[in-house]
């Protein structure tokens, strides 16, 4: 719960006492209710067990936090790079720019690959969303939207639709793609998700039927595309959520989110429960991405570091940083085997890290402004980067 985000969002009669005033939107057992702040405190005091007071709760939370630290510390018997000492070093990489995608009139904010490994969708601050063929540079579809802040875009698993997250009207919409170039796709836009602040990230789950969104209002949510119904909401972040990623493992029903509260959280999609939380970064987390096996995830932050977290050990296991890197990292993605970590930075470069040995392997130069997103293609043959310099680049 975050006072700053929810404060005075609603004004009206309290659900409990009936008095008109500014209301707090809180969730009791996942049901949204609007109580005035007095009734919230009264309800909370009634809910306390006998003998509990605010002070005892605070003490308990402090002892629990210390216990968590101890438990996590016990597992730190060896460092990741020590375990990786025996394996061979990554050879010289021959990755170069192979394609430059020009066509956007303003900063490219987001991109996503299609499962067919050649098409990709990109969204820009000029309100345009373009579907490209990565091999031929052909622009297959283009949609012009009235808003100018499409911060997130995602390709549907079937390849037949794209989801767009809006920064101005706070919605996430789905647009079905058509083969007919002349069709005005903007008219077929269907609003699915509604948040109370900008939508920072969106992704389809295993099918075209559900989308997961993250928002500046501090929450993440799971929606049914057909009906637009909210299936599950995830509360726990105390500031804007900037990124989310779905677990790649088939049995996993989890996703990870990261935000401006410097925390990254792992969630159970069915129950809405926050399973694990990590608080190591020193600034906003801009991007989170799962390791290909689903047992770990990486995060990129404004503190100029990227970090790897092991989910089964429940702790941070590696920090990818250098004294010479002082600009924030905006986006990360793993190569297919998980050995390489591509990270885009605000100093216009992409650093390639050896995930296991925790060293930098290479730097990719070419963009003329900040990198907003890096994404490896589904078959691992190429890396696509989107930048504020109005272009996208495909590296292979």
């Amino acid at each position: 719960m975050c006072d700053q985000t929810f404060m005075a969002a609603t004004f009206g009669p309290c659900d409990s006492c009936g008095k008109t005033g500014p209301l707090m939107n809180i969730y009791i057992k996942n049901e949204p209710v609007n109580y005035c702040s007095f009734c919230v405190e009264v309800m909370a005091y009634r809910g306390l067990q006998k003998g509990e007071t605010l002070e005892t709760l605070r003490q308990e939370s402090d002892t629990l936090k210390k216990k968590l630290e101890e438990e996590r510390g016990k597992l730190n018997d060896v460092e990741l790079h020590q375990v990786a000492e025996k394996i061979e070093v990554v050879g010289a990489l021959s990755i170069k720019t192979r394609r430059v995608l020009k066509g956007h009139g303003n900063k490219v904010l987001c991109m996503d690959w299609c499962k067919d490994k050649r098409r990709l969708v990109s969204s820009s601050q000029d309100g345009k969303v373009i579907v490209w063929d990565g091999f031929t540079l052909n622009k297959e579809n283009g949609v012009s939207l009235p808003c100018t802040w499409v911060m997130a875009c995602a390709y549907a698993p079937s390849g037949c639709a794209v989801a767009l997250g809006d920064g101005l009207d706070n919605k996430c919409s789905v647009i079905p793609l058509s083969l007919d170039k002349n069709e005005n796709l903007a008219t077929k836009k269907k609003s699915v998700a509604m948040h109370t602040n900008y939508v920072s990230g969106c992704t389809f789950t295993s099918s075209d039927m559900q989308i997961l969104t993250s928002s500046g209002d501090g929450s993440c949510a799971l929606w049914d595309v057909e009906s637009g119904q909210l299936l599950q909401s995830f509360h726990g972040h105390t500031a804007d959520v900037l990124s989310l990623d779905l677990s790649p493992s088939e049995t996993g029903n989890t996703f990870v989110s990261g935000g401006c509260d410097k925390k990254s959280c792992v969630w159970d999609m069915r129950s809405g429960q926050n399973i694990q939380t990590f608080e190591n970064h020193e600034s906003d987390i801009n991007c989170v991405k799962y390791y290909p096996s689903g047992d770990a995830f990486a995060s990129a932050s404004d503190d100029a570091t990227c970090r790897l977290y092991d989910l089964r050990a429940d702790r941070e296991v590696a920090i990818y940083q250098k004294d010479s890197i002082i600009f924030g990292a905006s986006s990360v993605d793993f190569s297919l085997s998980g050995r390489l970590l591509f990270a885009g930075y605000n100093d216009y470069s992409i650093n390639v890290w050896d995930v296991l040995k925790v060293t930098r392997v290479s730097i990719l130069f070419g963009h003329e402004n900040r990198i907003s997103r890096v994404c490896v293609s589904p078959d691992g043959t190429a890396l696509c980067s989107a930048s504020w310099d109005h272009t996208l680049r495909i590296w292979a």
Partner: protein
Amino acid sequence: MSGKMCSSSNSVVQAQKLVDQLRVEANMERIKISLTAADLVKYCQDHRRSDPLLTGIAASSNPYKDKKSCVLL
């Protein structure tokens, strides 16, 4: 926006939620890093050959790399 939570310790509801959340997290089953890191290394090694960006694939089979001769479609 990265404002600090000014009232996180004032409100009873929030303190209660925090305690409940911490209880859940503290009871989690954890595995030593020596084991989990070994698994991460194993995954990388197993999939090393099928990672085009890591090992590099021949220009003829990589659609993005320039081919030496023309391909008639």
